[in-house]
C-alpha cells in the first residue's frame, strides 16, 4: 500500500480505485528517494502566477517605462506598436473572434491579465528569457494593456492592480473539463 496514513483523501481513494481497474497503473510503493525541501528553497524556481494574482512578485511598472523596454527587446518580432511583425500579434483584433478571420491577440483573446506577466517573465524576451527585472515585466505588461486600450497611460501595474484588470475576453471560454456524458 502507498504511504497514505493520515493523508488518504482523494489521492488514496483514487489509487485504490485505480488498482482495481484493469489497464490502469496499480498503486505502487516507491523507494522514497525524494529529498525534502522547504518552500523557501524552491522560491527561486517558483514562477507560476495564478489568474487571481497569486504568485505575483513585488515591483511595479507603467506603460511609459514599458514602451522603452519594448523598444529594446520586443520590436524585432512584434513591431513598435505590437500590431504585426514576424511573430504573434499582441495588439488589436477586438471584435474579430466571431468573424471568418479572427485575430487572437493579448487584447482580444487572453482572458486573464496576470497571465501576461507570467508568460513574459518565464519566456520573454525570446533570446534571453528570465533576464528582465520584475519592474520591467510589470512595465511591459502595462504597455501591452495600454496599447490594447484596456488601461490608461498613467496606470501602474503591480501585484495589487494587475489582478483587477478586466480583460475583454474574460468570459469567452467554455471549459469542457471534466467531460460530461453526451
Amino acid at each position, binding site marked *: 500500500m*502507498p504511504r497514505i496514513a493520515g493523508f488518504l483523501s482523494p489521492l488514496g481513494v*483514487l489509487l485504490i480505485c485505480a488498482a482495481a481497474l484493469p489497464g490502469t497503473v496499480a498503486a505502487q510503493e516507491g523507494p522514497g*528517494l525524494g529529498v525534502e525541501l522547504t518552500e523557501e528553497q524552491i522560491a527561486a524556481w517558483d514562477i507560476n502566477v495564478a489568474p487571481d494574482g497569486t504568485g505575483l512578485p513585488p515591483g511595479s511598472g507603467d506603460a511609459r517605462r514599458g514602451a522603452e523596454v519594448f523598444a529594446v527587446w520586443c520590436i524585432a518580432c512584434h513591431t513598435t506598436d505590437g500590431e504585426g511583425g514576424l511573430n504573434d500579434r499582441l495588439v488589436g483584433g477586438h471584435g474579430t473572434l466571431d468573424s471568418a478571420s479572427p485575430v487572437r491577440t493579448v487584447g482580444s483573446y487572453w482572458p486573464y491579465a496576470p497571465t501576461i506577466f507570467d508568460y513574459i517573465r518565464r*519566456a520573454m524576451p525570446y533570446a534571453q528569457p528570465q533576464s528582465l527585472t520584475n519592474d520591467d515585466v510589470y512595465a511591459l505588461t502595462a504597455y501591452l494593456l495600454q496599447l490594447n486600450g484596456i488601461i490608461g497611460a498613467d496606470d501602474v501595474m503591480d501585484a495589487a492592480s494587475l489582478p483587477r484588470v478586466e480583460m475583454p475576453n474574460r468570459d469567452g471560454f467554455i471549459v469542457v473539463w471534466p467531460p460530461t456524458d453526451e
Partner: protein
Amino acid sequence: MTRTQNPPGQPEQVAGNGILHRRLFLTGGAAMAGAAGMGLMTARPASAQLPLEVPEWMKAPGAAMSGYGTPSPHEEHVQRSFNSLPGTIGSGVSRTPHERLEGIITPNALHFERHHNGIPDIDPGRHRLVIHGLVERPLMFDLESLSRYPLVSRIQFLECSGNGRANDAAEPPQLALSEIHGLVSCSDWTGVPLSVLLDEAGVAPEARWIVAEGADAAAMTRSVPMAKALDDAIVAIYQNGERLMPGNGYPMRLFLPGYEGNMSIKWLRRIEVTAEPMMTREETSKYTDLLPDGRALQFTFQMGVKSVITSPSGGLEMQAPGLYQISGIAWSGAGRIRRVEVSADGGQSWAEAALTDPVLPISLTRFRMPWRWNGGPAVLQSRAVDETGAVQPTRAALHARLGTQFNYHHNAIQSWLVAADGTVSNVYA
C-alpha cells in the same frame, strides 16, 4: 458495406472501385495464389540485371561494427520535415515521415517534435524535478533516484493537438502526408508512475490539478487534472528502450497517454500541486479551440479517434494498375481501435480493413487492405472507430460542428485522389 460482382476467378471485391476482402493477405490458398506474381505496391517485375551476377559486396569483407548504428545511406531520404517561426530556429515542429514508415513504432530519431524555444542542452547530473505546492512534503528528485523507482512501460502514441490543421484551409494543400498529419508518433515509453511520486509527497485533500513546467527556454507550462496525474501519467525516462532523445525531453518528461502532446511537458523540472488550473498562456491563448460564435473550447485534452492512409498517400506515385496493399495508421486517445474501414470511391462504399497485431489502447494501430487499382481515378479514405464507439468524422461534419478556426483536434477523414496517371494528391471529398 457494398458488395459488387466479382470477375470469375478473382479475389472477392467487398466495396466499390476494387476494394478486396481483407482476408486476401491473411490466408493462404486460392486467395494468395491470386495475388502471387502481381507484387505488392508494384505491378512490374523486379528490374534485376540479367543474367544474375554475384554482387561485389559478396566478394570482400563487410564493414566493421559500430557503437551506435545509423540507417543505410540509401535511406537518407527518410527525414522529418521541419520549420520554425520566422527569426527562430527552435520554435516550430518536425514531422514524422509516416509515408516512408511501416508498423506502429516510430524510430526515436524520427519522432515528431514541437518546441516553443528550442531544445535545451541539459546536463542530466544537474537536472532536478521538484514537486511542491499543496503537498505534505515538497520533494526533489534527480535522474539517478528516479531510475530506482518501479518502472512501467507502455506502447502509446503522442500527438500534437495541431496535427491535421493544414486541412482546415479552404483549398486542399498539396503536401506529403507527413506535412499534414506527421505530428503523431508512437513509442514504447518507460517511466515512473507519477502517482507514486505524488503519493510520496503527500497530496493535500483540496488538490485538484498539477501544474507541470519544463526546463526549456520557454519554461513551457500546462495545468493537468489531478485525476489524470493519478490515473496513467508517468515521468518517462526511456523511449523505445533508450534514454529520451533531447528533442523529446531528455532526461525526463511528463507523459499523459491520449492527451494533446504539449501537455506531456518535456524536460520536466517542476510540478506544483494546486487547487485550480494556472490558466497559463498555453492553455488560454493557445491550445483553445475557437468556435464560429467567437467563444473557445478550453481544456479539450483528449485526442479524438483518427486514421490516415499512409500508402498510397499525397506525393507518392502509383506504378501500373494491379494489386496493391493499402496501409495506414489509426489511433484514439480514448482507448483501442475497434475497427477501420476503407473506401476507394470517396466514401460511397466501405469495407473493413485488417488490423495488425498488436492492437493496443492509446497506441498507433496498423491497418491494411488489399485493393485492385483498375487504372482509373479513385478516392481513398479510411475511417476509424474506437472502443468507445466514437467514429472518425468527415471534414464536412467536423467543420459543421467547430467551424474552420478551431486550430486544434482536427481528426477528420483524409481523402487521397489516385489519378489515372498514378499521381496521388490531397482532396476534400
